[in-house]
């Protein structure tokens, strides 16, 4: 009984805070639209219409959300062990590069091919994540510094690798397009979603949400990781190996970001541009924050951000509102999420007052 009650109060609290942050972010966006002389109602109408108006747009929204979901999971997972993975962008690039190489060079029956493709993305990201983990464990190099460095190593490596080995027929700045049959796109999904970018990556992301939730809540691995994240001194005292948990956590976080790269470069875009650090690597931090580092929370927040991301172009086309407004809304939401402690207090005091007045009425 008490268990159920507790779970509800805890869950609803985080949920309430997230919703408050979203609403305030939208209100701030509305004020901004009004300030530049646009009609906020039509702005929001087209923003959400752009993300959801037909089956094709919904597919695009889901495909956008897929990458964000996986990066969000990556950041959230590292958070749980007390690590700040700011290197998801680099891990995405390396995971995506490995997957792109496989997509161009490996020819196997489709099911086997998909396994190899997914494994390559996972592995590439995991390697890129495990290096900062090892540096942290061995030499106490702060993971924020190390992962940012790794981002730029990935960025410049790809800058040289892609034109040298994966060059497209016409352009110097991007890899050759991956054949549809060698990508995560699949005819029945493309048909179902009316030719959208929707691809198998979405299912990979869903499976990862479930898997991460399972690892964190139900396994000894998750127990150890969370203990290290909450209080490393106590973990050490209890005989949990802090350093190996840091390495494992960064490896898994990197792997998840690598999968994000896989879905983005071999599902969503089907080629790799050079000289671009994927913005999703950083947007994922916002996804994790809004989702309270909870896998289910990450699922919903990535869908929400997916709508904003894929709707902003349509909003721009239909109204005079610039697409940057959507980014501003996202930024404001992050701002309010970061100050969510404040909402907790406000809600608490409102509820308390209500309870008190109810008591007085009795």
């Amino acid at each position, binding site marked *: 009984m008490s268990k159920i009650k507790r779970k509800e109060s805890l869950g609803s609290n985080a949920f309430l805070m997230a919703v408050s942050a979203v609403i305030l972010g939208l209100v701030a966006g509305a004020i901004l639209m009004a300030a530049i002389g646009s009609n906020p109602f039509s702005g929001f109408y087209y923003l959400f219409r752009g993300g959801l108006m037909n089956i094709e747009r919904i597919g695009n929204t889901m495909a956008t959300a897929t990458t964000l979901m996986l990066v969000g999971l990556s950041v959230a997972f590292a958070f749980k062990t007390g690590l700040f993975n700011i290197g998801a962008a680099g891990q995405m690039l390396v995971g995506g590069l490995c997957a792109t190489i496989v997509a161009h060079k490996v020819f196997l029956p489709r099911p086997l091919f998909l396994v190899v493709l997914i494994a390559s993305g996972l592995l590439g990201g995991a390697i890129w994540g495990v290096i900062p983990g090892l540096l942290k464990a061995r030499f106490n190099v702060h993971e924020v510094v190390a992962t940012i460095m790794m981002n730029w190593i990935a960025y410049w490596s790809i800058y040289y690798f892609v034109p040298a080995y994966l060059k497209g027929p016409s352009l110097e700045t991007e890899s050759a397009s991956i054949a549809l049959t060698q990508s995560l796109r699949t005819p029945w999904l493309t048909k179902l979603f009316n030719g959208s970018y929707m691809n198998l990556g979405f299912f990979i992301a869903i499976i990862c949400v479930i898997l991460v939730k399972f690892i964190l809540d139900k396994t000894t691995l998750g*127990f150890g990781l969370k203990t290290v994240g909450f*209080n490393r*001194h106590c973990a050490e*005292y209890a005989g949990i190996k802090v350093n190996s948990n840091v390495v494992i956590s960064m490896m898994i976080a990197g792997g998840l970001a690598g999968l994000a790269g896989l879905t983005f470069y071999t599902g969503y875009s089907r080629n790799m541009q050079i000289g671009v650090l994927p913005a999703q690597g950083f947007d994922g931090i916002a996804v994790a924050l809004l989702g309270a580092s909870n896998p289910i929370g990450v699922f919903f927040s990535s869908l929400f951000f997916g709508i904003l991301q894929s709707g902003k172009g349509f909003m721009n086309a239909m109204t005079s509102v610039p697409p940057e407004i959507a980014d501003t809304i996202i930024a404001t939401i992050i701002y309010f999420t970061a100050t969510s402690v404040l909402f907790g207090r406000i809600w608490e005091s409102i509820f308390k007052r209500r309870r008190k007045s109810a008591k007085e009425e009795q």
Partner: protein
Amino acid sequence: MNHVIEMLNIRKEFPGIVANDNITLQVREGEIHAILGENGAGKSTLMSILFGLYQADEGTIKVRGKEVQIRDPNDANDLGIGMVHQHFQLVHNFTVTENIILGKEGGFILHRKSASNRIADLSARYGLNIDPDMVIEDITVGMQQRVEILKMLYRDAEILIFDEPTAVLTPQEIDELMQIMRNLVKEGKSVILITHKLAEIKAVADRCTIIRRGKLIDVVDVAKTPVSQMASMMVGRPVSFKVEKKPAQVGRVILDIHDLTVMGNKKVPAVKDLSLFVRSGEIVGIAGVDGNGQSELIEAITGLRPIDSGVVSLDGNDITNAPIRTRNEIGMGHIPEDRQRRGLVLSSAVYNNVAIKEYYHPPFSKRGLLNIEYLQEYARTVVDQFDVRSGEGIFSNAGKLSGGNQQKLIVGREMVASPQLLIAVQPTRGLDVGAIEYIHSQLVAHRDKGHAVLLVSFELDEIFNLSDRIAVMHSGRIMDVVLPSETDEATVGLMMTGIEAKGAGHE
């Protein structure tokens, strides 16, 4: 008689718990008024309400007969209420003067000279013996506490609240503090003393308000009330102060420490060529003033600190360089000195905290999967057996428990695992007499089961009460190992300061 503080019919609820249920506290002008209660009885909550850290759900507060609203500590300050917290709030690389005037600088230009003169005056007047120009990190804990007192006096506080002030002090410092409190009331201040140490109440307090489980039990005149009566009012049943124990049935050596040298944080040896053994069926107590290498010794034995030279073995296994988990598996339990930093994951539920050392093996988990039902069931037995009280039972976060209940939780976790060697560092710190009685009897029971217990305590009472042998430690060395029946507290107290006992030297 004038009441300087009146808290009338105070009620405060937290989720799942009524911390204060219709409590009334009346403090007379110029008295030392003690508040006595078990851990989690609601003492700290009541004082936090008076100091403006919490708001009461119901009830009124009057200061000098006038009803007041105390919304935050600033309001309390303005009303002349000051509080010495259990954990000091000082900036370590600032001087005494700078710490005291912090927040009260007054204007743009710092009048450090005049402030420091005033502090010197106050210090002399109340017998605090503090040099205003000393830097905080260079002075002792006892002096830091006196700086906190000065801070309140500097702000013209008339009512001084002391929250468990003696928890961090040595016996001598406690005596000095008692004298300071007497000086304070002599100068017309009023003192509220929160404690569960009856001896201190007996020594200084005029009246005592006793609280049990959030309810007011009685207000007694300390001089006319025997200690045993106050204790039973606080706990709700008669309490015995003496530990009942049979003579030790000593067996084989469980913990053997040979020529151990351990570096301290400042890269100088904190433990020097130390040898000591603990056999099954006995409790060995390490007596010593805090900071004489006890922490480093315990960390070295438990694997939290690397060993420079020497050998440690546990039940015949060389564990000098063994990982902590190996030590646990051979059979080592550890009640750590710092319960919040080492002992618990504060932001995690009680049932996770209970399983923190054992989660990785059956029946807690199987093939990497946690058996959460078993975890919870196991936690329930620990919580029930050790009477750990919390708002939501085993689902409460450990951080939500009161200090005493956190300690009971750790003690429970370590004892239920029934280790061959139990290392107990200050196992009853911050506990009330009822809980101390229980934990002492459990430590003896653990010994009687044929296990070894190594006890570190800064309270000589506890050492004498429990130990079968006493090892006196001073500056990283064992001065001597003595039998409690053949020595007394004065002799051991002297050895603790580094003076060798007459005729000693059998090592």
